[in-house]
């Protein structure tokens, strides 16, 4: 019976690591495909608007204070 427990553990380990790798491999493929599709349909917009975001955030914060 104890041996059976170890066997179950080994099975779970194999199945577990297997599924983790299969799942993450599929995820890598899906992410890569997604990135290619996105970059095809939407040429590089860049993330250069970080500065704007920050200004918008501060403006929003001030508005928030005024509103309260």
């Amino acid at each position, binding site marked *: 019976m104890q041996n059976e427990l*170890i066997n*179950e553990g080994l099975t779970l*380990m194999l199945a577990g690591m297997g599924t983790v*790798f299969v799942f*993450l491999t599929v*995820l890598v493929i899906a992410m890569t495909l997604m990135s290619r599709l996105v970059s095809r349909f939407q040429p*590089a917009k860049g993330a250069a608007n970080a500065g704007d975001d920050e200004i918008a955030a501060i403006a929003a914060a001030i508005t928030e204070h005024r509103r309260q």
Partner: protein
Amino acid sequence: MELITEIWQGSGLYQMSGGQAVMLLICLLLLYLGIVKKFEPLLLVTIGFGGLLSNIPGVEIATGDGLLHLFYVVGITTGAFPLIIFMGVGAMTDFGPLLANPRTLFLGAAAQFGIFATLLGALGLTYLGWADFSLREAAAIGIIGGADGPTAIYVAGKLAPDLLGAIAVAAYSYMALVPLIQPPIMKALTTEAERKIEMVQLREVSKTERVLFPIVLLLLVALVLPSAAPLIGMLAFGNLMRECGVVDRLSDTTQNALINIVTIFLGLAVGSKLSAEQFLDVNTLFILGLGIVAFSIGTASGVLMGKLMNRFSKQAINPLIGAAGVSAVPMAARVANKVGLDANPHNILLMHAMGPNVAGVIGSAVAAGIMIMFTS
């Protein structure tokens, strides 16, 4: 006179058992680690204080109609608290580095080996007759190696509620000890040259990719491994709120008021499992021992996978970032960065290590799903 006797017999000093006294000391130690040593204070302070409350003799706090027992029943047995925390983690996590370099998911996968090796270790102890862990209990212990608090609490709540206190304490303590546990293992398994490898700067990730990622992640879980859907789903939901840009007020509340409120109640609820009967058991020692084994094996397998990928990859990969695959976000990524800097002062690995780091969160949620499916 009779009155004084009654008050005396109602006092804690009279009613306290030795076990409760020991538990009070252990909980004070947890508070010390959280407050003075700054080990995962959000959880160790709340768990530690919850533990103090739970070991006060003669009053229902962690049992019956007591408040902490109420929190436990409402939030842990239903899984609600860890899942809401996971939603908050999703709302606070930037998956950009992972999207910029999806291959780092493999590092997050490899590091989950610590989980399963520890599961086997726990069963081995049973085989040797030293302990008496069931498969469900062994699985819950293994998940400590996931280095992810809410996942560990969620799984323990489902599979081994009796061990929840020890598992949560082990998980958070070792997450805090990552800067001590990991570096020796990382250095032993890598050469100086490997540690010096610099990596090319990550590409920028567009907003569209960020918005699509949580949806793609959820759909893959739905198709491949439904039993991981509660954990991964709430993580993805939090991240979608963060990235979609149209529900910022929900995202802000999730990252602040909501996760803070649930953290307080979760910590107290976990503390309610630190009663002397449940915690002062040889099993707790085994769990603490297995937990550190889990962290070490996870670190090692992440680093070894990093070496392997570096050999077969076109772009150089510094194997140190593999250690970040255990999760313990963002501590493990910082450790990888620091060990890299020690070898090469111009080597900024932080953003590269964030990829495997968040991959480790997904990886252990997937492992949790498998364990729940297999043992239910």
